[in-house]
């Protein structure tokens, strides 16, 4: 069994800002973490390896310091961490991101052996498009199993998997061929803790670093250049400040005045002011 887990390093707080001039993300001074759902994707891969043996490769595209996210995954038990990093990968939209990840997965297959399953999170906290998993499945020409909340059964020999997916108002059980891309939600499993010695050891652990040239990607299809979408403007939502109508006084007085106001303005469905019909 060979699983590739795609992880993204994301800013930990909501204190992130977008540079108003470039429209890109300003991450200065913000602590970074592994995108929470990606840890569930990793856990799923580790559980496959616990049961069937094999290999778990963790892949991320990001700046140099994203190596720390890979080390966290190594501490949890991943066999190898691969960092795709190159200036030419920067400012990729989801289309260019999936292109880069796809070229890297092809190299992994060439050099580390066939990949049986690719796992991602459902959404990343920051970009939050949920588009990378589906896009990657399409690039790899394998089925997409998204919003996975449970793996009912898996057989890597027979190349077959049955998962439960959570969609609006329903749970869908889907059978699929392998290889496939799974996008994982937090309900899928409980993430294990890294033992302290492993955490310490991982601080020094080597991660594999690949550039655009290493994976043989076309620079024209990478990063900003390869992105069909651009952030043309970013701005802070305008508050509707000052337009709130306040009702004051004792709670009973204020409440009564507010309710009367709403009824007069016909804001409460099904309620009408006494006599309003005749007027």
């Amino acid at each position, binding site marked *: 069994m060979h699983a590739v887990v795609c992880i993204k390093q994301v800013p930990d707080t*909501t204190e*992130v800002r*977008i540079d108003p001039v470039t429209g890109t993300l300003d991450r200065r001074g913000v602590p970074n973490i592994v995108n929470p759902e990606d840890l569930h994707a990793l856990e799923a891969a580790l559980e496959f390896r616990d049961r069937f043996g094999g290999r778990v490769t963790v892949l991320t595209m990001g700046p140099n310091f994203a190596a720390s996210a890979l080390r966290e995954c190594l501490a949890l038990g991943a066999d190898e961490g691969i960092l795709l990093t190159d200036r030419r990968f920067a400012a990729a939209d*989801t*289309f260019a991101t*999936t292109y880069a990840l796809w070229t890297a997965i092809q190299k992994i297959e060439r050099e580390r052996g066939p990949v049986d399953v690719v796992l991602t999170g459902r959404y990343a*906290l*920051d*970009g939050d*498009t*949920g*588009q990378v*998993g*589906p*896009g990657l*499945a*399409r690039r790899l020409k394998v*089925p*997409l199993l*998204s*919003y996975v909340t449970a793996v009912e059964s898996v057989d890597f020999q027979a190349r077959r998997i049955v998962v439960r997916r959570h969609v*609006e*108002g*329903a749970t*869908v*059980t*889907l*059978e699929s061929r392998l290889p*496939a891309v799974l996008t994982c939600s937090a309900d899928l499993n409980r993430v294990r803790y890294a033992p302290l010695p492993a955490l310490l050891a991982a601080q020094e652990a080597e991660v594999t670093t690949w550039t655009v040239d290493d994976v043989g990607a076309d620079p*024209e*299809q990478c990063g900003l250049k390869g*992105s*069909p*979408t651009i952030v*043309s403007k*970013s*701005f*802070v*939502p305008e*508050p509707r400040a000052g*337009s*709130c109508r*306040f009702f004051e006084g004792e*709670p*009973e007085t*204020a*409440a*009564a005045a*507010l*309710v*009367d*106001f*709403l*009824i007069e303005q016909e*804001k*409460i*469905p099904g*309620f009408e002011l*006494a*006599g309003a019909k005749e007027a």
Partner: protein
Amino acid sequence: MPKNVNLDEWRGIWVYAEQRRGEVSPVTWELVGAARRLADAVDTYVAVVLIGDGVGRYAEQAFAFGADKAFVAEHPELAEFRTEVYGRLVVDLVLERKPEIFLLPATTQGRDLASTVATDLACGLTADTTQLEMDVEKRMLLATRPTFGGQQLATITSARWRPQMATVRPKVMPRPEPVPGRTGEVIRLEVGDVGADAPTRVLRVVEESNESRILDEADVIVAAGRGIGSKANLYLVEELAEALGGQVAGSRPVCDAGWLPKARQIGQTGITVRPKLYVAVGISGAIQHVVGMMQSGTIVAINADPKAPIFQVAHVGIVGDLFKVVPALTQAVRQRGRRAVLETVGG
């Protein structure tokens, strides 16, 4: 670079009609309304793409809501949505007919399909938009979406690629008034032995108790925030909701604490609602909450803190202790309600 050079070949604005278990989702009509507005600005047509088993009957409704054309693909193999199967149909159709804009709902189905299709078409896809405008001169879609937990809005464009794709959140665009008798053209698609070699198979669909649909359809929602203090105090909002004929919902901390089921959480990681009346009780108004309710008709806020950001989105408010204000509101509504009913009965 797979960029479409001849932009003039691409005309028309399309909407993917999401169907679940044979029923077209209401968000479809919201998108048709948005598409109509964009299409009128650049003088082009609106089409819906209906895929499923027996969904052709929805074409008339699409026309009533403002579509000019309906592409219909029907087959028993298409009964349940499957990304690969639907994706192939949509990609072929887009390449044949060349729409300039293609809108899909930002639902699990819409997102999967949109991303799959955009990858094949090598075009730009903006996620989860809440606002759609048109740069008429360039026929360029300006798709605005909240990012970083809604703290920022970003307007995303894809000027030189076609189609310009976007997923749009449910309940954000107003649902248009249907015009009965408005007609259009139905174009039936040859689907062949679709799905025969599909890599996936749906084994089971288990529908859930309809918590979120209940909120979807509610005209009035009373939502409790952390200010409510404990589960035992929830009766306060329940009574107010009952008096108003509405439903109870909560902010994330309230649902995280298990005071209300997760399906009742409003906001970025919960659901988006658009009731006629939304009463926020002891909710501070964090942007992640606000994005889920800001489209409500009238927003009422009850909060002890006059500086709480909820008052920036509220239309009416009372600054005060919810433990006093909410019972007073319930009382007032009950009195008025009774009066309204008595008048009706008496008259």
